[in-house]
């Protein structure tokens, strides 16, 4: 009550936005729970059991897990490589840095459609390129054009490329920030103490990057779970959890199943967040050891 009196003016001005956000929050949660657990008014798990009995859905979940578990580490590794490359000074590096922002400046749907066109079958640029028909790349990798959209692996691979193209700058930026927090003198110290490039990477750079690495893992794994537009445009035949929600809703008009799958997706995301947070905390107790099993006290 005291708070009410003290902050009356403030509470009044935050009320509209609070109600707006709160209202939608409750709406979303209650709607999803209501429709999926109480389709006819009474509590039932029938919607969920129907989904889980569906062999196709199991495949979709597995496919999504693979998508997340390949995409996230791939993005992490690439972002580390990119960051290390960008960390060097020079003209090329400053050009590359100034282009960071470019993928943000292109709407996601546009990126997806550009990839759609580039990976067209049979005459898209990528097919032509891989057939070695351009003078800039005279290597014949494939003899026949590939139908990228008709293969489960390839269509999801192309979706992942799109996602990586769009999100790598952020991840690279996070890693680069971590890199620039390492004192140059630490690297120099390691050098004068005899460490080579690889040892510096292994003993100094990577361990000190761990927090940034976790940030990337954390943000990116969630991103890969939620990704919708790229698979929607580029892999329309091979559903992920996100795209199957749209399919249930628009094509089959099954609001209850769509809601149930939405909650399942939310569940996967929450579990991922908890897992990564947990391992982050574990890591805090973990020390990097250079010399194992020594006794300090004689």
């Amino acid at each position: 009550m005291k708070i009410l009196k003290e902050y009356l003016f403030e509470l009044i001005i935050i009320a509209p936005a609070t109600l707006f956000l709160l209202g939608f929050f409750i709406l979303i949660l209650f709607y999803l729970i209501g429709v999926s657990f109480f389709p006819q008014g009474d509590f039932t798990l029938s919607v969920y059991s129907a989904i889980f009995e569906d062999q196709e859905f199991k495949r979709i979940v597995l496919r999504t897990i693979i998508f997340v578990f390949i995409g996230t580490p791939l993005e992490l590794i690439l972002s580390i490589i990119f960051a290390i490359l960008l960390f060097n000074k020079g003209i090329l590096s400053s050009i590359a840095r100034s282009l960071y922002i470019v993928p943000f400046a292109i709407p996601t749907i546009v990126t997806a459609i550009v990839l759609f066109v580039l990976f067209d079958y049979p005459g898209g640029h990528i097919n032509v390129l891989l057939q070695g028909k351009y003078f800039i790349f005279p290597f014949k990798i494939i003899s026949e054009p590939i139908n990228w959209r008709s293969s489960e692996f390839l269509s999801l691979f192309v979706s992942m490329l799109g996602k990586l193209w769009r999100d790598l700058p952020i991840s690279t930026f996070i890693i680069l920030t971590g890199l620039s927090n390492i004192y140059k003198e630490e690297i120099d110290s390691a050098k004068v103490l005899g460490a080579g490039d690889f040892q510096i990477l292994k003993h100094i750079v990577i361990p000190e990057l761990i927090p940034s690495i976790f940030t990337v893992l954390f943000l990116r794994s969630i991103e890969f779970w939620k990704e919708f537009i790229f698979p929607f445009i580029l892999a329309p035949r091979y559903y992920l959890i996100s795209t199957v929600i749209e399919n249930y809703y628009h094509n089959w008009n099954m609001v209850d199943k769509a809601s149930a799958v939405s909650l399942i997706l939310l569940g996967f995301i929450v579990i991922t967040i908890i897992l990564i947070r947990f391992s982050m905390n574990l890591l805090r107790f973990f020390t990097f050891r250079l010399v194992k099993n020594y006794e300090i006290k004689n």
Partner: protein
Amino acid sequence: MKEMLRLEHVYKTYNNTDGIKDISFIVNKGEFVSLLGSSGCGKTTTLKVIAGLEKVNSGKVYIDGKDATNFPPQKRDVTMVFQNYALFPHFTVFDNIAFGLKMRKVNDYDIVKKVKNIASILEISEYLDRKPSELSGGQKQRVALARALVVEPKILLLDEPLSNIDAVLRRTMILELKSLHKKLNTTIVYVTHNQLEAISMSDRIIIMKDGRIIQEDTPEKIFTNPKNRFVASFIGEFKMNFIEGRIEERVGDLKFVAYNDIVLNLTDYQKSKLWAFKDKFVILGIRPSDIYIKHPREGLLGNDFSGVVDIIEHFGINKLLIVKIKGFPITILVPKDFNVSENDTISFSLLPENFYFFDVETGENIFYEV
């Protein structure tokens, strides 16, 4: 004496101007040599060139008799302690110290032995299990020192190691570093902008300015025989007094005259050289500690003055008086217990044997002995 380090005409410039130019000097085995100069004069750059962390534009670096100019840092056996210590934050103190040994593929048994040994010498044995973030500034510095020393480098480079710790601890560390140097007999190149550190520890001091070496000598020689006005004002705890005046002939005798009123007698030796400067301007320098305070009943000593004490500043066991003679301020160092208060008049004598003379234009010490 065996030569351990030799720089020959080393140039290392950034943007064509900053950096170091034509640096040459030799450090013998077991010697403690300081590079002294104000911030930005190229001290750190010199150390980096010695460590191989910066490539020279031209010139040669010899380490232990071998031309090491193109050796990578890993091959030089020269370790460096950085100004910010640069401890590895994710390693314990033990692993920080062990790092260099590990890189040299020393076996774990010997590593433990050596780390413990150096830790006990530097009195950090209790902290071996801690992370750098759990150490105080002084402790961090010892760890950095231990890390650089434990590999028994040919040369140890110290970059302003005492600049980040408080004055009291600095005094103790100066003594400790000195005794550590005696004990381990490591060849040390020490960088500082603090003349007191350089004077109290070094066998030799190299004074740098704007990327060049100005003077190289023992601490005593640098103090008594500064090459120019810059060195004279840089060395010494209290800044030398400088008075611009003319060498004039007055009744057949050569005198230093400032402001027409202040007329100073000179020694015969001084006169013999200053004849050449007759009717020319020179700068006279005298250290605050070299000004002689007279007892009230003491007779004339020559160059006697009396003046009013304007300001008194306290510096530990000393105090500094700013006294006006004929409107011109001069600083005089007296012991703490010297009884004087502001606005008192005191008598003192500027003894000619304590004078330094510098060329007005070049700032060179006219009496510099090579």
